[in-house]
């Protein structure tokens, strides 16, 4: 009886001291629980898959991975990806700037609707984007007579793949530039104009330097998205080996043909390339500020 009652008191004592400890450290406990939860989630969702790719690519040794990439098809595929992305970046830099400019500076009917439409490529499936172009430029497409008369090939050729990538990457440049342009103070331009600069001089000497970082970020995001485009170029380009095959299409085919080391290594190379691009521009920006 006395034994059980003393053990009961001890139990109560432990319990109450535990409760007191919890009470004292409640906010601390809550803080570290939340941090632990978030870190575990990010580790599971993002870090683990990335590590798995690195391990998977090098499972037969670095030599085997490099050997698997030393293949003419791989060179053609990465080359295609690179130059499609470059063309897309150049076109969007020029026209994206113009579009952002009229959105910030001009008022015209239908502006709100078009502003909403600009984000559409972000949500429209890449497959649908490629398919739209196929409907326009494909064998029985609406513009097929025009294309045939001009003697150009768009579908299952590079021009179509460039167009598809252009559609998919449309919002990035414009969305990066609009806020920078809005924040830009027009008084500087007025001052330049007062001092006798013409429109072009004002743009080039005053406006452009202020927009530089928005532009660099827009270029980076467009480039990264273009490098990784898959669905749209698959539908419009057909992924002909060594011809209209891009880096992503090569990875897809290599997986299909069970060349796992080649697929994983190419995926790692493409992912790294894209990552270096984004981290590089981040680093440049941090160094500047």
């Amino acid at each position: 009886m006395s034994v059980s009652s003393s053990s009961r008191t001890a139990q109560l004592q432990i319990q109450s001291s535990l409760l007191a400890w919890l009470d004292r450290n409640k906010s601390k406990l809550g803080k570290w629980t939340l941090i632990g939860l978030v870190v575990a989630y990010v580790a599971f969702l993002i870090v683990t898959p990335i590590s798995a790719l690195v391990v998977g690519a090098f499972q037969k040794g670095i030599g085997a991975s490099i050997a698997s990439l030393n293949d003419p098809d791989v060179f053609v595929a990465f080359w295609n990806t690179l130059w499609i992305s470059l063309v897309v970046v150049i076109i969007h830099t020029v026209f994206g700037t113009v579009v952002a400019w009229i959105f910030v500076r001009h008022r015209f009917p239908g502006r709100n609707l078009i502003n909403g439409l600009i984000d559409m490529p972000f949500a429209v499936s890449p497959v649908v984007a490629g398919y739209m172009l196929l409907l326009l430029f494909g064998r029985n497409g609406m513009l097929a007579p025009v294309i045939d008369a001009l003697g150009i090939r768009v579908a299952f050729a590079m021009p179509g793949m460039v167009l598809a990538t252009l559609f998919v990457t449309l919002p990035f440049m414009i969305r990066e530039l609009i806020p920078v342009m809005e924040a830009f103070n027009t008084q500087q331009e007025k001052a330049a104009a007062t001092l006798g600069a013409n429109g072009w001089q004002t743009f080039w000497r005053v406006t452009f330097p202020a927009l530089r970082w928005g532009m660099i970020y827009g270029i980076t995001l467009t480039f990264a998205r273009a490098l990784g485009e898959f669905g749209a170029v698959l539908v419009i380009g057909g992924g002909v080996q060594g011809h209209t095959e891009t880096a992503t299409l090569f990875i897809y085919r290599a997986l299909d043909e069970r060349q796992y080391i080649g697929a994983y290594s190419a995926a790692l190379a493409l992912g790294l390339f894209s990552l270096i691009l984004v981290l590089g521009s981040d680093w440049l920006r941090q160094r500047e500020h």
Partner: protein
Amino acid sequence: MSLQTTIESSNTNSTYQPSLPWGRWSIRFVALSYLLVMLIIPLLVILQDGFSKGLAEFWRQISLPMAWHALQLTLWTSAVMTIINTIMGTLTAFVLVRYDFPGKRLLNGIIDLPLAIPTLVTGVMLVILFGPQQALGAWLKDQFNFSVIFAPPGIILALLFLTFPFVVRSVQPVLMELDRVQEHAAATLGAGAWTIFRRIVLPPLSLPVITGALLSFARAIGEFGSIVIVAGNIPFVSQTAAVYVFGEVESENRLGASAVSIVMVAIAFGLLMFADYLRQRSKGRTA
């Protein structure tokens, strides 16, 4: 991601006349014809094609069992992803803004990684991790009879990976701006941590949370690259709407491809317009 930025009308800008009228008109012409060619014509073409055989045929194509199942699978996996992503994204933003801990900057950097990684590569990563021949995948299958790859969980995981930045980056700046005086007042008056969070922190965050959730959902509806790798193309099991459209394009069933495409485009458009409307409304309120 600055997709959530919209244009504000500001008086100083609209009264400003940069150059001669013909310059204004030509620049406007260039910009609008670029958008017309790149964006509007392709979107109209698909509408025209989908409805070319009439509304009845459009409905018949949508209600084919395979198409209907693909659309349903897309919607429910995206919805599950959106719920998880909204909760975890808000929590992540909260932890990043309110707490200091070692590795915080690294964590903040990792959040943007999904934007830099091609979605197809994301799919490859998940297959290496959970594929039926891989250690983890085989173990899950043996012990729990749980498949990730070629099944809906794989789709949800892939979608979670690639939309993770949206909610975090939408909530984070608003949370940073939040004045903490009210929270301290509530704490002084005896409110618990959860009450403070629910009654004081959450209300101003509702708009960025909802916008981030809508963007995640809109982005998920059309996802193809990662899903085709992770889920394959198994009708009635793991075939999503985008994969279905791809199959119909390959087999030259134009009407089926166009009809399901239109449904996907319409959902995307509706969601983006709704997100835009919410943003405009909140701007009107605060201004």
